[in-house]
């Protein structure tokens, strides 16, 4: 070897070090996690060890639920891989209807144009309601004037016509002080935004634009926490985790004030801000044993999974409907 060749091979070695490190790491041992509190899955998924991959993507709100299902299912069927993406409800459906994923998570029902895209590719699916969320309207702990807001008052704050006009709490209701109203909410790509604007402002996507939008709900927490006249909305989990920092507003949709809670959302009293969360499995994918086993597990243990992922579990009727919906999907030709 000439000295030049030696030098070159040294460089080649250096370039390879990283790739070798990657290659050697592939056989790392599986994770050591304690036994789960989940009930064992019944019947079919207990059988032979399956393998394969169940690709899921979609809403970042629903992702933790499918992730929890994926974790628990992994303890039963360690060879089945369930990666969970979070491209958002719309982004998830785009891939789903392109045949690139097996299950799509969604925080709103599939739209007509998305349905058309699925049909064009011959992708059949079912809509499974897997959990409930209570969109929670929060204010600062220092806010001592508002404990309950009517949906009309919320509309007054958030409707497009409020832009530049409704600037203080007094503008919403003369009984409130003239404290500056600082609004925080999710960005326009979010299914949460779609749902809230649809229910409160009467039209999906119609909202005033002069609020502070954020794709990260933790920013809304920080924003409302720091502003005496602040108000924001997000999923119930984010309120539960920050209950020491924020105050949840009771919602009056015409039949009295209802505070957001697990019971109110389950019982259908927390209207109109309690919303269903969905997963959409494709009919073709369900024919694969690993996908069927995963869905069976998901549905059979939905209560545990929802509790683990800190979602509001379904009520018994909804759970029964979920089970029959899955059965009818599986029996589809």
């Amino acid at each position, binding site marked *: 070897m*000439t*000295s*030049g*060749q030696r*030098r*070159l091979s*040294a*460089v080649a070695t*250096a*370039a*390879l*070090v*990283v*790739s070798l*490190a*990657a*290659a050697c*790491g*592939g056989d*790392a*041992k599986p*994770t*050591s*996690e304690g036994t789960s509190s989940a009930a064992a899955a019944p019947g079919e998924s207990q059988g032979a060890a399956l393998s394969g*991959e169940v*690709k*899921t*993507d979609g809403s*970042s709100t629903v*992702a*933790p639920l499918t*992730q*929890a299902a*994926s*974790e*628990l299912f*992994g303890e039963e069927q360690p060879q089945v*891989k*369930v*990666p*969970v*993406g*979070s*491209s958002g409800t719309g*982004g998830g459906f785009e*891939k789903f209807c*392109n045949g*690139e994923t097996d299950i799509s998570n969604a925080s709103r029902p599939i739209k007509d144009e998305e349905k058309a895209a699925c049909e064009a590719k011959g992708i059949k699916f079912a809509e499974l309601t897997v959990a409930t969320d209570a969109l929670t309207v929060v204010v600062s702990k220092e806010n001592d004037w508002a404990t309950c807001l009517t949906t009309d008052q919320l509309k007054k704050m958030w409707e497009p016509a409020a832009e530049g006009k409704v600037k203080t709490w007094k503008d919403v209701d003369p009984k409130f002080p003239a404290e500056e109203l600082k609004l925080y909410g999710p960005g326009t790509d979010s299914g949460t935004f779609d749902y809230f604007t649809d229910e409160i402002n009467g039209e999906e996507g119609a909202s005033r634009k002069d609020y502070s939008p954020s*794709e*990260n*709900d*933790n920013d809304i*927490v920080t924003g409302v926490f720091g502003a005496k006249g602040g108000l924001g909305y997000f999923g119930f*989990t*984010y309120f*539960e*985790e*920050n209950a020491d920092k924020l105050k949840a507003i009771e919602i009056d949709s015409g039949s009295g004030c209802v505070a957001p809670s697990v019971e109110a959302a389950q019982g259908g009293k927390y209207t109109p801000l309690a919303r269903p969360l969905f997963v959409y499995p494709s009919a073709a994918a369900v024919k694969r044993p690993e996908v069927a086993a995963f869905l069976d597990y998901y549905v059979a243990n939905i209560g545990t999974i929802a509790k*683990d*992922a800190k979602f509001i579990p379904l009520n018994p009727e909804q759970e029964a409907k979920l089970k029959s919906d899955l059965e009818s999907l599986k029996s589809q030709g």
Partner: protein
Amino acid sequence: MAILSTPRSAVQLASKGRPLREHLFRIALLASLAIAIAFLAMLIVYVVEEGWPRLDSTLWENQPSIRRPETAGIQSGILGTLWIIGLTALMALPTGILAAIYLEEYADKTKWYNRLIELNISNLAAVPSIVYGILGLGMIARWMQFGFTVMTGALTVSLLVLPIVIISAREAIRAVPPSIREGSLALGATQWQTIYRQVLPASVPGIATGSILALSRAIGEAAPFLMLGAATLVRFNPEGVWSTFTVLPLQIYSFIARPQEEFAILAAAAIVILLAILLLMNSVAIWLRNRYQKRW
């Protein structure tokens, strides 16, 4: 002339004639350096302090978990990142260095098409990474049907760093004095022998530094992977180039959006790991440069 030839009198003159300006310039330089270092130090102190409780072996032994944030790890992300960087190094470095050799040693710079190529490579280096993500999604994942795999990610990132590798390798090759080439050719070596035995070994330090800095850029990218639809929660390690994968920046991105405080700590700990990998790569670059540096 006398001033230039006698250093001492030059210094005396400078300190007498314009002490204030000299001082101000020095202060401005130091302040710029201080700002850069202060921000870096703040970032490091913040993430280490925040992530300290989780900087233990569970971090790389465990897989991420949505249910147990307090013991969740980032193993799939660390290995995913290493796979991507390793494959990118294998694909982008040889291609980039060979392209640089062609442009420096063979291409006729008076031809318009070679100048056009040069201009385009410089432009490509400034294209935002998300654009490469869109390209990777449309071309590699969908049209070439590679799906959302390690291969797709590595190819996309290779395209992303290729212009940087080419530009830095060209600079390194250009820095080799022409006299070395001329000497080699005069002794009867062919052009290929001259490049392989003289030019390349002499430019190794520059090429290595540039390449590793380019890979360091790739390691911190999240945007193209988001575009490619890499899953954010993956509880298994990549087993090959056709595996589904995730990378550290994506995991960090998904952790900070979670409501639980434990995920913020986990994200900080993951950032420390990412910084450590970066630091390691940059140290290799510095070591290579010092080891092979040659002066003429």
